[in-house]
């Protein structure tokens, strides 16, 4: 929670429940769109993402300050959950049968509780792979490529527009193109 949000009373579970149940079809479609969009970037399904975000909002694990738009709150909750799944990639590896010294008997090799160096490396490689796959989508469009790269470097808004040297209309259009191309490239979400 941001420091300036701390003094604002959070919405109660009943408030969130009521607000969501009162959503229009477009509202639900917007939430679904956010979930799908994030599922294109992280190894999680849109449905799971939405379900988990709703659960956290309803059980109080995540609290929505009353001055924050509910869509923005749920969008940020989903983004945070999605990002954590990348951190947790390979956090729960399967148990493997390993042979002992004489090779006759097998034993289970339990995974470490904490991510080790190897796991951290795998996780970082996965993030690098996804990032590169996204950038590769725009190999034929240098401006979009620069724009995506800029966003990934933390640029946004006017700074990013100036960087791409596009006027406002062309810039808005390019942003849409980027979003749509990512969606089309991974229609079923990101699959490692």
């Amino acid at each position, binding site marked *: 929670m941001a420091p300036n949000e701390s003094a604002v009373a959070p919405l109660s579970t009943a408030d969130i429940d009521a607000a969501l149940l009162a959503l229009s079809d477009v509202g639900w479609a917007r939430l679904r*769109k*956010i979930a799908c969009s994030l599922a294109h970037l992280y190894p999680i399904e849109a449905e799971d993402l939405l379900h988990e975000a709703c659960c956290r909002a309803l059980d109080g694990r995540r609290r929505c300050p009353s001055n924050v738009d509910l869509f923005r709150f749920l969008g940020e909750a989903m983004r945070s959950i999605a990002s954590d799944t990348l951190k947790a990639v390979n956090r729960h590896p399967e148990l493997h049968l390993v042979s002992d010294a004489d090779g006759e008997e097998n034993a289970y090799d339990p995974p470490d509780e904490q991510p080790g160096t190897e796991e951290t490396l795998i996780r*970082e490689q996965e993030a690098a792979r996804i990032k590169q796959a996204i950038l590769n989508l725009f190999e034929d469009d240098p401006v979009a490529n620069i724009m995506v790269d800029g966003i990934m470097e933390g640029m946004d808004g006017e700074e990013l527009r100036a960087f791409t040297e596009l006027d406002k209309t062309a810039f808005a259009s390019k942003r849409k193109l980027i979003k749509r191309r990512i969606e089309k490239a991974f229609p079923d979400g990101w699959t490692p």
Partner: protein
Amino acid sequence: MTRKKSNDHLALDRLAASLVDDILNMTDEEMLAEVVADGEDPKRIAQETKDIFERAITTCGKARLAAARKSIRSDRQKDSRVLQPNPNAARQKLEKILKQHPETLSKLTLAARNGEGLSDSDVFSMLEDLEELGVIPPIEKQDDNE
């Protein structure tokens, strides 16, 4: 355990935040147009998403129920530990013990032997003394209430 995100992970997070922002900034008309352009039915999409939310309500309800059950179990266990022994049962128990152990009875004062003038507290105290002396096994306070 918190680990620092790699630069690539942070890069993805920034792109994700930007995409989410774009969706949040779309007008309702733009959103509807995009759903239709994807060849999807807005009503069906809305219903499917609402279903996910309703499943989340069920999931949370079950979790709350499980937590409540756990809390009740915990309270019951706590209550059973603080139950006070029943004074009448304790008095009957003392009487029975003293009958079974006449040598102990002979050491008591006349009043105590007759069970006269003993307060509930005296009875409990005597039972505890007898327990400490090993005359009787440890007192089961719960049994006294049954």
